């Protein structure tokens, strides 16, 4: 019952202006939890709305389950959708809201009643059938919206920042529930969000969008550990970015950030000249004192104790800085400002980026 979604060279521009979505190619596998992640205006919502059929692509083809649906009207696409502010029908009860899609499909009343009960049980809302949306809390409205979308057993479930309006705690529990529900139903789920933590936590794969283009598609681990571009590295999590020139160093190559700071590279990048690299703060090992085997010495500038770990800002030679996340191993207070430290990491943790 789940379907593959294919976007080929899909573009959308409004009134001949700039392209909100610019020649996107993407394949979403059946049963996959797929996130479209990016800052506002990156084209993620427009992409979702084109899949739903609320917008028509200016160019390109959208296929679902192999069939071209680019020009199929929204009401014939057989997709469930959860809207950002839920879009529950305010003049209908919870039961009527959930039953709506089944009624449109001409299902018999008894069957509708049974399916609605099942769907409401699935989202733990049994007993709320006769309330109106206005009488429910945000979390409950969210569940009704979810029940309304899944009760029609869609091939594809589309979610437009569905958890955005919930407070943090509720959002986390809804993340688990949604993920669980998606796996149980085996439905292909396309999830739009600007919250990178949410995307990392929930997705099988993520497409990072920027300026209407796909920057990178990959699993959460790939996106986080091996960002392809400077934008992805910067957008997802905390990161240290360096830019420098490729120079030969011994048997291999190194990145010359400044005359005082030369970082060994794992392999020669395809590009020559100036390149950018990323280094995650938690990949850096920080030790007090000086160590000739370390990659570079540094001086603690500030230490930010965050409970489970300490976030150091370390001054490097050549007036550069490095964020270092150090696990709180119970060895006592963070190092004071001004303390000399030595920093090392596996050269492979230095990720070479496309600009």
């Amino acid at each position: 019952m789940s379907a593959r979604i294919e976007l080929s060279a899909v573009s959308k521009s409004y009134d001949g202006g700039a392209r909100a979505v610019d020649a996107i190619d993407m394949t979403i596998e059946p049963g996959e939890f797929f996130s479209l992640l990016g800052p506002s205006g990156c084209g993620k919502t427009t992409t979702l709305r084109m899949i739903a059929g609320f917008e028509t692509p200016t160019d390109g083809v959208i296929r679902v389950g192999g069939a071209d649906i680019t020009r199929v009207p929204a009401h014939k696409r057989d997709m469930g959708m959860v809207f950002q502010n839920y879009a529950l029908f305010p003049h209908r009860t919870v039961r009527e809201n959930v039953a709506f899609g089944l009624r449109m499909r001409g299902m018999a009343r008894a069957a509708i009643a049974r399916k609605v009960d099942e769907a409401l049980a699935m989202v733990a809302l049994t007993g709320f059938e006769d309330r109106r949306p206005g009488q429910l809390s945000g979390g409950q409205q969210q569940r009704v919206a979810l029940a309304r979308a899944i009760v029609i057993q869609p091939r594809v479930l589309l979610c437009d920042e569905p958890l955005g309006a919930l407070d943090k705690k509720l959002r986390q529990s809804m993340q688990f529930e949604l993920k669980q529900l998606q796996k149980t139903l085996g439905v292909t789920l396309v999830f739009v969000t600007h919250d990178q933590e949410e995307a990392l936590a929930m997705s099988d794969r993520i497409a990072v969008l920027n300026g209407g283009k796909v920057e990178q598609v990959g699993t959460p681990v790939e996106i986080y550990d091996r960002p392809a571009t400077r934008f992805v590295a910067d957008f997802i999590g905390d990161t240290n970015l360096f830019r420098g020139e490729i120079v030969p160093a011994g048997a291999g190559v190194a990145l010359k950030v400044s005359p005082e700071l030369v970082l060994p590279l794992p392999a020669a990048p395809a590009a020559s000249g100036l390149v950018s690299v990323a280094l995650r703060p938690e990949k850096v090992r920080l030790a007090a004192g000086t160590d000739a085997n370390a990659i570079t010495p540094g001086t603690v500038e500030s230490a930010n104790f965050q409970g489970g770990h300490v976030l150091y800002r370390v001054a490097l030679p050549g007036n550069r800085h490095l964020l270092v996340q150090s696990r709180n191993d119970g060895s006592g207070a963070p190092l004071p400002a001004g303390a000399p430290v030595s920093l090392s990491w596996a050269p492979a943790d230095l990720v070479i980026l496309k600009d």
Partner: protein
Amino acid sequence: MLSIKIGRFAYLAANWAVLIFLLLPIAIIFVFALNPTPYIEFPPVGVSLKWFDKFFASSQFMSALLLSLEVAALTTVAATVLGASAALGIARGNVPGSRAITAIMLSPLMLPAILTGLALFQTYVLMDVGRPLWGLVVGHCLVTVPYVVRTTLAVLHNFDLRLEEAARNLGASPQRTFFEITLPLIKPGVIAGGIFAFIVSFDQFPVSLFLVSPGQETLPITLFNYLKYDLDGTIGAASVVSILLAALVVIGLDRTVGLRSYVKL
């Protein structure tokens, strides 16, 4: 504490003053209608229903009342359908110059109604159609459609388009989406406009003045003609009846079609 009390008292007093100012003429009409003397007398000398008897016994008044109700009913239906459709077109149709169209739709409210009536009268003369009933209804529509457009535009302005998208997504065709989602949600605005249309048509004088044919006059015109020669409590009785009828229609519409049939989010 005292200043709060004084402020509160002043506020209430001002409210009551406005209310009395608005309702006093109606109270005077009631006194006039129930007073047995054929002129307005204060304090009233007694209570009698003889002017009501005279009003209901008069075939002239009765046929005028029926005509007024008929015209108002036709106008309400036509103006509501036309005004609501126009508002939907303006708000949703993506038509160029929708602001200008809105202004044109609302312009009859800015023109003195007597000019609207005169212009229509001349148009009908030029068209050589005489003074048919539909001509009167068209005239009334001209001055009532703007109310429906206004109230419908107001509810459409606050309408969340995602509700329609949600319905489409769940498999509702554009037509079903309109009747299942859009119409029920904009209904309060449409009905409010319809009620305005009924009231404005029912006591329409300036437009009707030119468009009624002799012997086939609406109640306001008949009252005016009666006033020119006679002045007695029948006028008061007729006024009371039309006030009550209008109130009855408003309450009836509210109860049956419902203004509060949905809970606001």
